[in-house]
């Protein structure tokens, strides 16, 4: 029994090593002197200082962050309103139809989304650049927000809302005092997912960005095609720490939600 246990741990260890080795390898060489990823040649921070002096890259980082924040904000607003709307549709067929349309952009390959958006923006004669990238990011983030908010709305149910309505609450009061406080965790998760979708996206942006505008993924792609530059390694080091922070943030957000749920159920039990 103990032998099998050890074997299974070994398997997991190998999987984790495979998952992390390339990333750690990348970061390790960001501290290497020299300019290739084959032999480590002594510790240096020069690639990081080169990164800081690379004003083109810094502008691109800022653009990427701006796109991510703006697109997640708009996607969260539109997606939340959409989820509220879907939740109120009384007929199951309508709801299921809307939901399957909602999911099209989630399951579609990036290339299809990118290509079809490119045709769409060209048909509208929108100049490719910041605005088209922003619109695309909003568009592909909306469905995930809907999927994050909708379960919360279902959990809320109808009894509280009808009770409030019976007691004379206006629509706005119902929304602001009952619905929004309850679904806020879902909205936050949606915003978070939208943020990661936007930061991670390469293919869609690659299609709809013009010559003048670039995001980090597109920039990394074009630099990687030119070969190895340890400045990209330094960049990946910075991004790794950044995503670590995001994940930890998300983890605590989830924990907080769960503890709140726990508190609420114990409170309900107390009342009963």
């Amino acid at each position, binding site marked *: 029994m103990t032998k099998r246990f050890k074997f299974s741990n070994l398997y997991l260890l190998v*999987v984790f090593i495979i998952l992390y080795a390339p*990333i750690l*390898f990348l970061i390790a060489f960001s501290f290497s002197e020299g300019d290739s990823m084959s032999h480590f040649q002594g510790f240096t921070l020069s690639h990081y200082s080169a990164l800081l002096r690379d004003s083109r890259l810094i502008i691109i980082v800022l653009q990427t962050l701006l796109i991510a924040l703006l697109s997640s904000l708009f996607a969260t607003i539109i997606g939340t309103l959409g989820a509220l*709307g879907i939740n109120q549709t009384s007929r199951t067929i309508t709801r299921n139809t809307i939901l399957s349309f909602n999911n099209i952009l989630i399951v579609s390959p990036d290339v299809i989304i990118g290509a079809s958006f490119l045709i769409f923006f060209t048909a509208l004669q929108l100049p490719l650049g910041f605005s088209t990238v922003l619109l695309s990011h909003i568009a592909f983030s909306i469905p995930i927000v809907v999927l994050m908010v909708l379960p919360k709305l279902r959990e809320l149910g109808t009894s509280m809302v009808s009770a409030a309505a019976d007691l004379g609450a206006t629509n706005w009061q119902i929304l602001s005092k009952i619905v929004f406080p309850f679904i806020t965790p879902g909205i936050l*998760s949606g915003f978070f997912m939208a943020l990661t979708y936007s930061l991670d996206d390469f293919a869609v942006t690659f299609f709809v960005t013009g010559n003048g505008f670039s995001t980090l993924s597109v920039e990394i792609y074009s630099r990687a095609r030119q070969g190895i530059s340890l400045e*990209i390694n330094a960049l990946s080091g910075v991004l790794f720490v950044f995503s*670590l922070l995001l994940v930890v943030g998300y983890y605590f957000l989830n924990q907080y939600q769960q503890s709140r749920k726990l508190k609420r159920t114990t409170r309900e039990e107390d009342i009963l």
Partner: protein
Amino acid sequence: MKSKTANLFYFIPYSLWLFLFVVAPVALILYNSFLDINHHFTLANYTTFFKSGTYLMMTLNSLWYALLITLVTLLISYPTAYLLSHLKHKQLWLLLIILPTWINLLLKAYAFIGIFNQTGVANQFLSFIGVGPQQLLFTNFSFIFVATYIQIPFMIMPIFNAMEDLNQSYINASHDLGATNWQTFRRVIWPMTLPGVKAGVQTVFIPSLSLFMLTRLIGGNKVITLGTAIEEHFLITMNWGMGSTIGVVLIVAMVIIMVLTGDAKSRGGFQK
């Protein structure tokens, strides 16, 4: 009900999105697939696609590679998900599986350029064990390896969720009734985690058809997937009609896969 007007209000931005960014782009890609390079209506794209062996071979090739990637990913992920679900602090371990997905895909591809190139770590290792350096980068092997590496977490997540839904008492009951480990696996565990497997196959297979950045950076254009062909036609040769036709084929392939892996309820991600 009085919420009718409110309902309408929620739906305005959402349905605008639904129409402009879901329905219209799909319709446009379908419409474009019937246009030749001078914007005249034609069926030529489809006849070219089905008559010239090149496109059909490319499609089959792309499906074959996606199948290989999905199979290898599943073989690695299923035991991992199973073992993970039996660990203490499993949510934390799952988070560690998910963390690499937050690192930009392009950076991971770039890491493999460093690992697989002529003087890279992989070749140093091969020389060390006496095999001698091999051409690793720009081969079909490296494409499958990197694609699998990228997809593993997306396969583990839904299977892990299905494992979590699996009630331990069924397994105990099966053992109590005298089933062997293999019988328990085949008759109880596998059928009950099948929805997770289906969801995983769906999330891995479809994107694997369109990983054009990997075929360019890692596959060295030796592997041409449907995604590569679409990117080529849209952004390089500017033959949008043909690109859209391949896009329609990709959409059809996607729908077939969705139907085959239908009723997949448990989705990956943080929803749990």
